[in-house]
């Protein structure tokens, strides 16, 4: 077996998710190559070469791959996929954008959001917002898979795999990059944080999200939100946790002013310990919370911050 892992990049740097995808690849077994594609991505390639389990890193460094637009990335993967039995990517917005194109052009199905590897052709994936887990077997010659990071522990960084250039250059006249507005934050990435504190509609407005800052500072936490909080414009979209936002599974998840809709639970119910702070003692979030505190968040949050 031979596996190609598409590296996930964040502003040109290697994103944490890649180490989780390699862990999934190790469970499948066989040689694991990592493809780093973008513009000015040598540093990301070197970071990928350090990841345990990697046989070699292949770098496609060219302006046509800048911002990892779907059309050139899909075409590049089609060129390379012939050498492999499996192509994996993280179930990030990049993986989800690019991989189905490879699958369609190779006339194979894609398995999305895989959370467990049963064997080289059989995998588990959540369906219906995580309310059911399907075991699916693929008889396709090429398995195209996106991996949910929370299903696999990241591999370590003791390796020094060879790095080689890929000289495939494709054309793209159909799509072009215009601009990006990325949220700047010194906090850990939502997907990789050990502690996440999220606010919902109960926060009332965007200004009040500052009440979470001090606590997040003390706990080294990432800050998340419910869809209602994002829709209301309290916080930007990249903070949404849930079925259609980010999936997190930290050691500690603190839900503040969030009712606990199934779509929100889908994004956080695999957290080790869940704390809920809500003034409604009937809120469904308490059905999944290990520790529930009923009360007004505007009183509880300042007290919690001062006592931590």
């Amino acid at each position, binding site marked *: 077996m031979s596996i190609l892992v598409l590296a996930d990049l*964040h502003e040109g740097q290697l994103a944490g998710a890649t180490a989780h995808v390699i862990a999934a690849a190790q469970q499948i077994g066989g040689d694991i190559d990592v493809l780093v594609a973008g513009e000015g991505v040598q540093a990301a390639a070197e970071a990928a070469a350090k990841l345990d389990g990697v046989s070699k890193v292949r770098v496609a460094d060219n302006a046509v791959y800048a911002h990892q637009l*779907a*059309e050139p990335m*899909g075409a590049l993967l089609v060129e390379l996929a012939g050498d492999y039995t499996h192509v994996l990517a993280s179930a990030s*917005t*990049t993986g*989800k*954008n690019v991989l*189905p*194109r490879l*699958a*369609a052009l190779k*006339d*194979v199905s*894609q*398995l*999305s*959001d895989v959370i467990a590897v049963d064997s080289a052709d059989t995998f588990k994936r959540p*369906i*219906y*917002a*995580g*309310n*059911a*887990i399907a*075991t699916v*077997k*693929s*008889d*396709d010659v090429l398995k195209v898979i996106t991996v949910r990071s929370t299903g696999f522990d990241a591999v370590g960084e003791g390796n020094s795999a060879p790095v080689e250039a890929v000289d495939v250059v494709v054309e793209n*006249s*159909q*799509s072009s990059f*215009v*601009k*990006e*507005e990325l949220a700047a934050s010194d906090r850990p990435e939502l997907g990789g944080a050990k502690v996440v504190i999220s606010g919902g509609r109960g926060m009332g407005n965007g200004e009040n999200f500052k009440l979470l800052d001090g606590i997040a500072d003390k706990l080294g936490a990432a800050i998340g939100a419910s*869809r209602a909080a*994002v*829709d209301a414009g309290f916080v930007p*979209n*990249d903070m949404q946790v849930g*079925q*259609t936002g*980010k999936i997190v599974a930290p*050691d500690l998840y603190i839900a503040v002013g969030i009712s606990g809709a199934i*779509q929100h639970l889908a994004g956080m*119910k695999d957290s080790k*310990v*869940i704390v809920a702070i809500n003034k409604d003692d009937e809120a469904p979030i308490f*059905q*999944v*919370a290990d*520790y*529930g*505190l*009923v009360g007004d968040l505007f009183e509880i949050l300042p*007290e*919690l911050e001062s006592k*931590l």
Partner: protein
Amino acid sequence: MKVLVAVKRVIDYNVKIRVKADHSDVDLTNVKMAMNPFCEIAVEEAVRLKEKGVATEVVAVTVGPKAAQEQLRTALALGADRAIHIETDERAESLAVAKLLAKVVEEEQPGLVVLGKQAIDTDNNQTGQMLAALTGLPQGTFASEVAVDGEKVHVTREIDGGLQTIALTLPAIVTTDLRLNEPRYAKLPDIMKAKKKPLDVKTPADYGVEVASKVSLLKVESPAERKGGVKVASVDELIDKLKNEAKVL
């Protein structure tokens, strides 16, 4: 410009599903079904493009059993002009749906195809991307803003780090994210009118597409249930439990 919208019949988003006792699948008998929420957003966007004079005709298409015509009628009530039902009782997965939609694109030659970013039953998030690859058209996925501007469409996408705007040549494929628009509700007179709008019924065989896939569903299980824990009475008790019982602080 013609706009094609793909809509999928799925379980209503409020319903909590149950797994069948024999673990063969989820139990959908007598469960309330509805249009996939992301597809409602897709229909709304297409109808708004028509209201703005950018689109001249909105065509809705679905692949699914006879009952999926309900969702096409909903699309027609919301403002689509006509509908195409590709009828099949087989489990059509993303690749087969994309192949069928590619045939419809070939036939209808739309300037824009709008799909949901994901169906809330299988949560695959694939069909639009596959359709783009098969038709050789560019894609703007997870759209929170779509602006048609002459020969191009600008699509603002919700990505992990924030927002990204790209420009695509037309025709193009767009998949919708939650914040693209807020879908309207169908009014009663429109629901009545929708019953008279044209709805063509086809089969996958008409398009020469094989629906069967190489992926088999071996088993469906319930996830490990999470039990509710305890209520604590104060912030002090919470901190104590997190430190000494859960040991996460």
